[in-house]
């Protein structure tokens, strides 16, 4: 099994749509103990990705993702701009230099993205950030691929893990980001970023199914 630019375009279209459709929902999640701008910030960036979708450099899948990443960090403010921009930049860099990639490249690229997020934001697992659903989801993806699952099934499993992990963030106390100032009061509500990862992956799994 190998992927190409078309696969990246397909996935990115799905993510973009989900972010734009959930602007209000993501914002409401962030308002519980954060400042409510998470949905707005992401949407303002992905809005531009959407508008310029056809214009990004398509030399190869990695270059394409790199250019998208620069748009995102150039336009999204707050915590999410650097976090999401860095993540996509690292993933893009990992895929650069070849017209195709395989599932293992994707997993390796996502691991690099996580490293990038940690370099920027200094968060550990358990600090109640998007890492808490993203990292277990990547673990699941890796296991599925090693077990020989189809991309569709692998993404579906990944989404299920992310959802469970996102819901579990309700038990955690926020230790990074705006929500951390509330201390124990952050316990009881899910993390906005972690939930966004789950929502994005669930939609991606659906789209794969329907592809």
């Amino acid at each position, binding site marked *: 099994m190998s992927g190409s630019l078309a696969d990246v375009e397909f996935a990115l279209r799905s993510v973009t749509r989900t972010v734009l459709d959930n602007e209000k929902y993501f914002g409401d999640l962030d308002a519980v103990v954060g400042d409510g701008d998470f949905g707005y910030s992401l949407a303002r960036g992905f809005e531009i990705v959407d508008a310029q979708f056809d214009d990004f450099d398509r030399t190869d899948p990695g270059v394409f993702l790199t250019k998208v990443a620069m748009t995102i960090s150039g336009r999204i*403010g707050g915590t999410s701009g650097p976090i999401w921009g860095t993540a996509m930049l690292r993933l893009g860099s990992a895929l650069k230099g070849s017209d195709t990639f395989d599932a293992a490249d994707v997993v390796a690229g996502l691991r690099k993205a996580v490293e990038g997020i940690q370099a920027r934001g200094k968060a550990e697992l358990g*600090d109640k950030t998007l890492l808490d659903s993203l990292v277990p989801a990547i673990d699941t993806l890796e296991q599925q691929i090693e077990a020989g699952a189809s991309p569709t099934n692998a993404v579906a499993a990944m989404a299920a893990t992310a959802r469970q992990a996102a819901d579990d963030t309700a038990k955690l106390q926020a230790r990074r980001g705006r929500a951390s100032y509330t201390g124990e009061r952050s316990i009881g509500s899910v993390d906005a970023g972690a939930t966004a990862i789950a929502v994005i992956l669930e939609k991606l799994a659906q789209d794969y199914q329907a592809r």
Partner: protein
Amino acid sequence: MKKFVNDPKQFVPEMLKGIALANPDTITYVPEYNLIMRSDAPNNDKVSIVQGSGSGHEPAHVMAVGPGMLDAACPGDVFAAPPADYVFETAKRVASDKGVLLLVNNYTGDRMAFEMAQELAEAEDIKVATLFIDDDVAVQDSTWTVGRRGVAGNFFVIKAVGAKAEQGAELDEVIAVGEKVNSVTRTMGIALTACTPPAKGAPLFELADDEMEVGVGIHGEPGRRRAKLVSADEIVDELLGAVVPDLPYASGDRVALMINGLGGTPISELYLLFGIAAQKLADQGITVAKSYVGEYCTSLEMAGASLTLVRLDDEIEALLDAPASIVNRIF
């Protein structure tokens, strides 16, 4: 939502346009980067001072641009740190031979944007340094967070580094003064109502008619605790009780006292709080040598106030006394 607004997405750009039109002779506005700068910047004999942060805290920081204060500011959207690109572009445009000092209120998003911008600027050989402001005593356990927040105390850091830079000081001297002021500045705030970001259209939290949020953040972050609304006297006790022992400020100290409105509280109430606080400090042997009452760092239309103390020495007092003027003016 009870606001003067057209399209909420254009809230920040339309505000910036208003600032530019109100100050055509002194201010340059660069819409692509939400950038407001002194038209006469950069000055190669002077360190340039830049602050960016989320919007919604006006007059901080876009309206703090002017001689003796900021050379430029590049706000993000309401309550969102500016994208790193904005900061980088701003640093580039005001880059002077003496260097650029980036002032950053200590929040995750702001730290990251300014760190990225500093890397980008250094890659282009711009002499640049970053100074973090973290005066909010409400954040008690900073082991796990990014640390204390920067709030109204940033006014004093801007004022001091702005004055020092105007004197022609070198970058490291300007930084030293900024760090010193930050180290003797403490703030605590209290909210009586929540605030409503224009793009969200609904309040960030709900406070009952008889409740207040003690130690509130300037982005609607909940504070130390929610409590029954009490008298102005008791509120001042609560604020001083958090701020004074923190440094601590002690009998014999000379201080600057700021009562800062959070956006929806009329200045009459701020002076009332000031009078009470000044009296209580005098009773503790602490002399209020400089006074600041009004809106310096707000949280949209939140009703509330913060109390800031700065321990003065001759150097700081002289820098605070130095002439300065900003966008946000009376006459």
